[in-house]
């Protein structure tokens, strides 16, 4: 019997999303706070192998496993219809997902069918008076808001990636795996995925523990070379400010900020970024910020834990050399 607290699990090419594991960890914590009856994971895909066992190790008590060619890739319509059907049958109280492109689409659509509230991008959850209360950033993170659903159930909540800790797997945990059938046949799904254009060998900004970003101060496309070298030495993702993206020095996929990506790494190294309020909106939840900028008055220094007022073209290569030495690369 599925429990009252569910987690939608996202996989891409049969690799579990970090944000789904984080949601599973938060579900376990919430289950204890709610004195709940356990955590159910919904996993969809094709030829998923041992992923269901992985989910049990990370905190699921039951895995609803939909394994079908039509579900191999996330597509909003078949996934929503399946989630809705299962939720209408089993009536969960809460469904969590990662606030990724897929998780946000899924919960937004499911809220229509289930006629219930959806909370996007929560960064903290508590349980009180039979309701989950969420904290979420609004106005690009300039303000915080406390939100909750009314009496309608389920409560659909997506969790911001890296805002919740990833649980340690415990191979000794046990749970059940229940197969479920897809809800839509392939011929009634209008959307077909025909190709992927992947950025090879690059760390995704959303999952990155460390991000090295370049701004106007890098001066041109070639100015990103030292930024990339430092990122490579640290196993970090490469970010950029809007100024650098708008100048055409680096593709938009790297933009951090209000009209780019919101990130929350352990370490954010800002190179030649002055720290406009719109850039801050995308990176201020980083745990430790290092700013390297020749203008000692730049606003970025007010956010930073450590600051270096100097020439990034001298300091960044020195840092790269130092970290290569320390990290044995």
């Amino acid at each position: 019997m599925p429990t009252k607290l569910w987690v939608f699990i996202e996989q891409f090419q049969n690799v579990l999303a970090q944000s789904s594991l984080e949601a599973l960890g938060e579900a376990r914590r919430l289950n204890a706070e709610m004195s709940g009856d356990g955590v159910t994971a919904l996993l969809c895909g094709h030829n998923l192998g041992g992923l269901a066992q992985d989910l049990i190790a990370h905190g699921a008590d039951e895995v609803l496993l939909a394994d079908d060619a039509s579900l191999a890739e996330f597509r909003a319509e078949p996934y929503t219809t399946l989630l809705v059907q299962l939720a209408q049958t089993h009536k969960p109280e809460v469904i969590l997902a990662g606030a990724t492109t897929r998780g946000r689409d899924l919960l937004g659509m499911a809220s229509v069918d289930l006629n219930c509230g959806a909370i996007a991008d929560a960064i903290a959850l508590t349980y009180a008076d039979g309701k989950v209360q969420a904290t979420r950033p609004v106005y690009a993170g300039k303000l915080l808001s406390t939100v909750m659903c009314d009496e309608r159930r389920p409560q659909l909540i997506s969790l911001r990636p890296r805002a919740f800790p990833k649980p340690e797997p415990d191979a000794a945990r046990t749970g059940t795996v229940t197969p479920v059938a897809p809800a839509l046949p392939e011929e009634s799904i209008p959307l077909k995925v025909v190709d992927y254009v992947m950025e090879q060998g690059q760390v995704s900004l959303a999952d990155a523990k460390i991000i090295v970003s370049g701004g106007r101060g890098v001066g041109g496309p070639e100015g990103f070379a030292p930024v990339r070298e430092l990122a490579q030495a640290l196993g970090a993702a490469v970010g950029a400010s809007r100024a650098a993206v708008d100048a055409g020095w680096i593709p938009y996929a790297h933009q951090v900020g209000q009209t780019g990506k919101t990130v929350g790494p352990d370490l954010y190294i800002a190179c030649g970024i002055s720290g406009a309020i719109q850039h801050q909106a995308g990176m201020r939840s980083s745990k430790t910020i290092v700013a390297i900028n020749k203008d000692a008055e730049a606003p970025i220094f007010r956010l930073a834990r450590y600051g270096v007022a100097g020439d990034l073209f001298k300091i960044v290569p020195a840092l790269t050399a130092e970290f290569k030495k320390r990290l044995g690369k």
Partner: protein
Amino acid sequence: MHVVVCVKQTPDSAAKMGVEDGKVTWGDAALIVNPWDEYSIEEAIRLKEKHGGKVTAISMGPESAKEALKTCIAMGCDEAILLSDPALKGSDALATSYALAKAIEKMGDVDMVFFGKQAIDGDTGLVPVAVARRLGWTPLTYTIKLVELDFAAKTVKAERLLEQGKQVVTAKLPAVVGTVKDINEPRYPSFMGIRKAAKAAIPIWSAADIGADPAKIGGPGSAMRWPKVYPLPAREGSAEMIDGTPEEIAVKLADKLIADKVI
């Protein structure tokens, strides 16, 4: 071809946001078209320039949102409609998507609806997909390129920017497209456009005009409650500045970051 662009009026992205008596404030910052929506407006106008037809901008909000719609006309939208009614006040994504879907259904002949990725005030990004679901149309969120469009055959091919890279998809029209930045570079309003906008009559549709069920809009139609909004706790102090030669700085910084266990 009839394309609809849904826009929202928001405080300027550079506004310093605050909270007074539980209400959000933005000082004397201007109210603008939600920056994410500019890409949608531009894309819709480009489609019209290529395929002919009509672009209608619609906004749900107070009377003041007419200003945002005038910007849409000044950029090149043909018509604008303001969806405004005291009964719509306090609508969450569930209720807003219902009202917008009813308005789009009233227009009748729509091939494509555009949204920006999200609005920079609430930042939920829920409304575009919820509208798609209500209309029963395919959502093409995070679209970075419309590769092929055939309004006669009712097919679309698009590139979507996801976490792992670009996903290329095909789908059927009508569709709801959510755009991201980089799909285009939005134009500035032209002088002629601004003159046109100044003279444009922007009709106001009420809840009754779109045939909305009063139980599905505003407070009664909303499933979300937001009892509290508050400023972010300030980040403490200023940066610890590190100086020396580049090599000395590198050693000191590496020591600190490793001691802090962030590397």
